């Protein structure tokens, strides 16, 4: 027996060169293994890590599937849910289960010749793009010695001007996500890419004879010229093959509406900088995900400044409270199905017809305002509104003379602008009809997110599509139903290109070599067309070489890469005339009694593709401040009628389908209408996203993807905890008093009394200690936040999280109130709960000159710098939490547990090397990005020495929040310099200190909100 064991051990030693632990449990029977190996020689994996794998040992397979040793994946206690961060590291080390691998002896050679521009400690920035729904968001990525660490907006690009959105910011975490699929997988086995190639070679050549009649390619929305060109070329090789497009959050209605109005699918582009009056028909154009939102926010915010030019006026008619509605001067909450008739009324009223009732008055005033601003107004419609509303808006914009002034039409950015739901329906029919032999799903997760009535997952399961290949970032619900899963590269690891909302092409360039030996989309499609060896770089470059006329290609290429866009690719506005306003025939008044169900994209996890991104999961949703879950949103009036309270679990039933979710009473939500958001209830998303929330796709059908009528709601009596990060969403305290946290007035009153927000200054001599004379320092750092510009997009929160290595804590800890965001955006509702005014207030550390936190720290772990920073000395902090108790703004965050992941290799690479990673038991908070200040200080001092004259840090120094803010609502700088932008802002009449009466003398101040209501509607 001992002998046997020894023999086995030796065999393994020989077979694997001694890198397998012979102590593995479960002895191998030598002969049985030989037999298995012989059998496996033909079918087994090409590369294997142990004999058990080669032999297809079921225990090993089970272990592979489990990824973790027994017990590890069954952690359900509260700490381990948060602890996903901690076990992440295990995935690399344990995936192979070999355990005792000897580390190779490697000789590490330092640079013989220093690469150009690479200076350790200095970040480099590369221009690339992040895409969502095909639309490119031009970004600059900060790279530290080859590791991308932070996404910033491309300040030279028309679509960004320096701002970003939350999805671009969070993309860096997705790239480093250790749950991404790390190899080709076939039926649960890890396989090599070569094995996949050999597996697909046969079916492809078989299809050649059939002209590809059995090939179907299902992609997500693609705007990439290279990729679209490749797919079209592939379709030339296989002329009978079909290209289908589906994405759950698609723009079908927009395209159909354009077809109704113009007979062709066109993209609509707006210029908010020239719009004096904007009427939004359920359009959330000031929030991430709306094509061009980054630019629109900037243009819109500029027109919200009461001190510069004429302020614009926004009317929002909306079915679900949104960030856009919160910024509106007038907001009308109505069920989504009513918006069609309101749009028609608006068109009629513009023709002079008068209306009655509150709604009629609203519409009439808006219409009059539009008429008074012909050529400088915009009517904009949400993508979930039916095509007829879009068509009406086009006619309305045309009749108002806005086209060519504030509204422009261009070619669609989508390279294949088909009706995506129809396209998917056709694919399902083809599969059902047995016409599909080879289905290639290029990105996307249709098994999870296809309309429920198409039964896409069942269609895949029935096996009629013989060979199914899924290509994507994650092994997900769809890859589970495909024989092959090919792991994709992240956009930050691959070459590609994409169009921004204005059509401008950005080259997507990799910031790092693929972490997991994955293929980029262009490489994958090239492989399908037989160019298996072509690299992404060659393919993209080759495509643009073809497009480029002239001999200076190299210069053109370098410039395009450097700038982040390709000159001359912007779509030019088309001269189109909208067809005459036809009131659509399908306009039928909504059944007043039927309850409406609004299905919306989720503000943070979108359609579910960001489910496994902890930053986005923990990012508070702009209006409810909920994290980690989607809720069933109902209005206060309806909740009162149905006796619903927040956190009550309800069952929603629509056409026989049922889902259960927790209620969230959302102020400003219209009556008799429910909003649910997509993207949750994932069954296979990864350690972060799986099982969070409920799956609203169950109720989504191809006929009513966004707005459905006749939903039943029933209380189940259960309670489900929802983690909201905000304690109370009103500035009125329950004792009936009002706290002037956000100060607001109307434009007219502001003109009469510009200093309305100012309070009596607290005299400076109130303290026993002598005041520090900050005026004598070269720098005194300060910040001003313009509440009028802020659109509550949350981008600052993620920018801060990325810049400052802020930990994700998980739902349980968020429920307890232990989220770690250094910067939060408070949302307050005032007035009638069914149609309140909403306000956003970003709250970072105030860096008080008389900081209450500093005096109470017993060890001096938080103290003031000579430049007015309230510094936090992590090493010195013992964690009494006294500073947080004494902070009136509650901006301090404490590491109650070990929130940071100290183990996972990928996350180590992601971190900003300039910022300490905090450990358990330490207080942390906003530092005004002190690492950036010091970087600029070093630069300024070296420049001073070099130039031989004093060079000071100017306005180019920006904190992460200020830099990424698309609205330019946050300004940071030196308040000792009267010419700095922050000094100019602080000198404005509407500048005020939050809780200034406490004599904290905060360095962060706010510019009070000024709204521009229509006097007609004010009375």
């Amino acid at each position, binding site marked *: 027996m001992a002998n046997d064991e020894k023999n086995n051990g030796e065999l393994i030693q020989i077979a694997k060169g001694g890198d397998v632990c012979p102590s593995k449990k479960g002895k191998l029977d030598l002969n049985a293994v030989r037999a298995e190996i012989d059998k496996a020689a033909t079918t087994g994996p090409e590369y294997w890590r142990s004999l058990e794998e080669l032999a297809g040992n079921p225990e090993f397979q089970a272990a592979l599937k489990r990824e973790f040793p027994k017990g590890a994946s069954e952690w359900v206690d509260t700490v381990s849910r948060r602890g996903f961060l901690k076990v992440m590291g295990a995935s690399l080390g344990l995936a192979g289960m070999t355990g005792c691998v000897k580390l190779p002896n490697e000789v590490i050679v330092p640079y013989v010749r220093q690469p150009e521009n690479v200076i350790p400690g200095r970040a480099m920035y590369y221009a690339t793009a992040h895409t969502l729904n095909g639309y490119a968001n031009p970004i600059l990525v900060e790279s530290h010695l080859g590791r991308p660490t932070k996404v910033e907006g491309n300040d030279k690009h028309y679509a960004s001007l320096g701002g970003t959105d939350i999805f671009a910011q969070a993309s860096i975490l997705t790239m480093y996500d250790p749950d991404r699929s790390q190899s080709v997988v076939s039926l649960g086995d890890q396989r090599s890419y070569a094995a996949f190639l050999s597996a697909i070679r046969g079916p492809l050549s078989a299809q050649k004879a059939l002209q590809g009649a059995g090939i179907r390619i299902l992609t997500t929305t693609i705007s990439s010229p290279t990729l679209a060109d490749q797919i079209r070329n592939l379709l030339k090789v296989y002329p009978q093959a079909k290209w289908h497009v589906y994405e759950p959050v698609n723009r079908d209605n927009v395209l159909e509406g354009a077809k109704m109005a113009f007979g062709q699918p066109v993209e609509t582009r707006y210029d908010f900088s020239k719009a004096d009056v904007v009427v939004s028909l359920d359009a959330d154009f000031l929030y991430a995900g709306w094509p061009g939102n980054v630019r629109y926010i900037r243009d819109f915010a500029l027109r919200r400044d009461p001190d510069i030019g004429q302020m614009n006026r926004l009317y929002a008619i909306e079915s679900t409270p949104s960030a856009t509605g919160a910024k509106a001067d007038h907001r009308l909450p109505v069920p989504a199905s009513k918006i069609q008739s309101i749009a028609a009324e608006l068109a009629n009223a513009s023709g002079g017809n008068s209306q009655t009732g509150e709604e009629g008055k609203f519409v009439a005033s808006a219409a009059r305002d539009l008429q008074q601003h012909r050529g400088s107004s915009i009517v904009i419609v949400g993508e979930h509104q039916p095509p007829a509303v879009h068509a009406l808006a086009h006619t309305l914009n045309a009749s108002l003379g806005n086209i060519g002034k504030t509204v422009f039409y261009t070619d669609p950015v989508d390279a294949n602008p088909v009706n995506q739901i129809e396209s998917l329906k056709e694919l399902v029919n083809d599969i059902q009809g047995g016409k599909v032999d080879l289905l290639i799903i290029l990105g996307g997760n249709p098994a999870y997110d296809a309309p429920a009535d198409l039964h896409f997952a069942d269609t895949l399961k029935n096996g009629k599509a013989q060979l199914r290949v899924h290509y994507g970032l994650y092994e997900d619900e769809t890859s589970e139903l495909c024989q092959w899963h090919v792991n994709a590269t992240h956009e930050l690891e691959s070459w590609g290109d994409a169009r921004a909302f204005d059509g401008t092409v950005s080259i997507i360039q990799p910031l790092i070599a693929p972490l997991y030996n994955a293929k980029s989309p262009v490489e994958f499609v090239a492989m399908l067309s037989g160019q298996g060896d072509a690299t992404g770089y060659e393919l993209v470059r080759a495509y643009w070489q073809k497009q480029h006329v002239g001999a200076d290609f190299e210069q053109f290429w370098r410039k395009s890469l450097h700038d982040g866009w390709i000159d001359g690719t912007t779509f030019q506005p088309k001269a189109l005339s909208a067809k005459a306003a036809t009131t659509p025939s399908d306009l039928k008044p909504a059944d007043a009694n039927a309850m409406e169900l609004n299905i919306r994209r989720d503000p943070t996890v979108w359609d579910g593709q960001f489910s496994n991104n902890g930053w986005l999961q923990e990012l508070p949703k702009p209006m409810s401040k909920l994290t980690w879950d989607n809720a069933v949103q109902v209005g206060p009036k309806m909740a009162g009628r149905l006796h619903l309270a927040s956190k009550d679990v309800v069952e929603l039933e629509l056409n026989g389908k049922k889902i259960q979710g927790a209620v969230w009473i959302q102020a400003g939500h219209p009556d008799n209408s429910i909003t649910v958001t997509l993207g949750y209830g994932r069954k296979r998303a990864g350690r972060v996203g799986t099982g969070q929330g409920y799956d609203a796709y169950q109720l989504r059908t191809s006929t009513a993807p966004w707005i459905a009528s006749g939903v039943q709601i029933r209380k189940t009596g259960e309670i489900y905890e929802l983690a909201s990060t905000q304690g109370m969403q009103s500035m009125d305290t329950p004792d009936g008093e009002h*706290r002037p946290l956000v100060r607001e007035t109307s434009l007219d009153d502001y003109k009469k009394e510009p200093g309305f927000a100012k309070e009596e200054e607290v005299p400076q001599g109130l303290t026993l200690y002598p005041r520090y004379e900050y005026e004598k320092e070269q720098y005194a750092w300060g910040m001003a936040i313009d509440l009028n510009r802020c659109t509550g997009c949350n981008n600052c929160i993620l920018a801060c999280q990325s810049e400052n290595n802020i930990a994700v804590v998980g739902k349980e800890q968020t429920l307890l109130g232990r989220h770690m965001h250094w910067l939060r955006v408070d949302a307050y509702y005032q007035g009638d709960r069914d149609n309140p005014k909403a306000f956003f207030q970003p709250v970072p550390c105030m860096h008080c000159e008389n900081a209450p936190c500093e005096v109470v*720290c017993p060890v001096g772990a938080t*103290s003031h710098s000579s430049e007015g920073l309230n510094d936090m000395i992590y090493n010195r902090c*013992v964690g009494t*939490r006294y500073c947080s108790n004494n902070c*009136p703004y509650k901006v301090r965050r404490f590491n109650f547990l070990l929130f940071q992941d100290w183990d996972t290799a990928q996350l180590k690479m992601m971190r900003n090397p300039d910022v300490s990673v905090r450990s*358990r038991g330490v207080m942390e908070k906003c530092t005004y990005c002190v690492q950036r200040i010091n970087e600029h200080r070093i630069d300024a001092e070296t420049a001073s020495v070099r130039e031989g004259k004093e060079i000071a840090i100017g306005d180019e120094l920006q904190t992460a929040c200020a830099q990424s803010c698309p609205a330019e609502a946050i300004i940071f700088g030196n308040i000792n310099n009267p010419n700095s932008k922050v000094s100019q802002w602080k000198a404005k009449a509407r500048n005020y200190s939050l809780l200034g009466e406490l004599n904290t003398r905060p360095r962060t101040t706010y510019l009070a909100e000024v709204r521009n209501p229509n006097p007609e509607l004010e009375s």
Partner: protein
Amino acid sequence: MPEQYKSTTEIQRTPVIAPGHTFGTVTEKISAIVLTRPASNGWFIGFGICFMLTMMMLFAIGYLFVKGIGIWGVTIPIGWGFAIVNFVWWIGIGHAGTLISAILLLLRQSWRNSINRFAEAMTLFAVAAAGIFPAIHVGRPWLAYWLFPYPNTMRVWPQFRSPLMWDVFAVSTYATISALFWFAGLIPDFATLRDRSEKRWVKMVYGMLSFGWRGSARHWHRYETMYLLLAGLATPLVLSVHTVVSFDFAIGIVPGWHTTIFPPYFVAGAIYSGFAMVLMLAIPIRKIYGLEDFITLRHLQNSAKVMLATGLIVAYGYGIEAFMGWYSGDRYDAFTLWNRLHGPYAPWYLSLLACNIFIPQVLWIRRLRTSPLALFFISGVILIGMWLERFIIVVVSLSRDFLNSSWGMYYPTRWDWMTYIGTIGMFLAAMFLFLRFLPAISIFEMRTLLPEAEVKE
């Protein structure tokens, strides 16, 4: 005749020591508890339970060290929870011992002689229980020693403007003086025990503890001087320790904390709860060990009177807090008052008012004041009330402060409860040991109360 039916004048006249005792009987009666009386089953069961609770506390603290402070219910905005509540509560309880032994000694209140020993022991154990919390409640307890000003290679001193820093001095001084005072008081009694014990090793132990006490006149002279000096040192501590503890809050700007009434109000509250604890301990002890002759109804009644007086000071404190909430016109202070009465913690605040103000008013009734059973229960109510008071001050004030967006709720976890109940177990376990191994009543001081002790010139 059972005590409760004795006429009041009779109680008034009750001496602090029952008649008929001599030096010998006093010594015999007290030392017998330690030396000859066998430990009862009840003692073993009681001590066993308390010992188990102590172990539970150590387990809870061990887990805390492994996991971090996050196992408790503390969060942002409520950064302090049970740990600080319990700390203040225990420190307050300790105050009665010091008051009895030091201030009453200086005021020549000789009735104190029969209760000062175990009141001092109670102080010591309460301070020990209290001392656990500040050390373990910090995020990195292994660095808690940084709060002490010691010369170090980092060349960093603590931040002397922080009330927590002052706490370190106040509490450590208090613990030191209390321990010294208590031990010094024990020295003549150790000698008595040494002389009366029969086993050799017991003699040796008490002999060492008695520091060679022979009872010579010189010994007594020096002893009295030292004892008075220590009493003089301890006296200001009765006022200063809880004053400094109250600064933890009064210095803060949190509405509900930032008020100048706190120092006197905290000191009164401390003595209030301290006497309640003295009674809760004295009543069962005198019953079980048959010490009714030494701890008489007069002691109980005097303690009840002190509670009544300090309770009224505490009530005045509440009144002033409420008045200032309204009178200051400060919207945050006004809301704090409203929130205590109507907010989510209103039941706790109303219970606090009942426990600390309304129920103790029955002490005006002499019959209840002289009923050990009634006093026992009222003392329990006061102890709960004083714990609630600290809970209201610490937690409720923090839960809703300046920015509505940052309001929160505090939910203590099982670890919070285990630690708290564990400290009660530890405190009682120490009391059990004390009763068994040391004279619970000062023998030599009791002897001075006897008529024989009166020196006739």
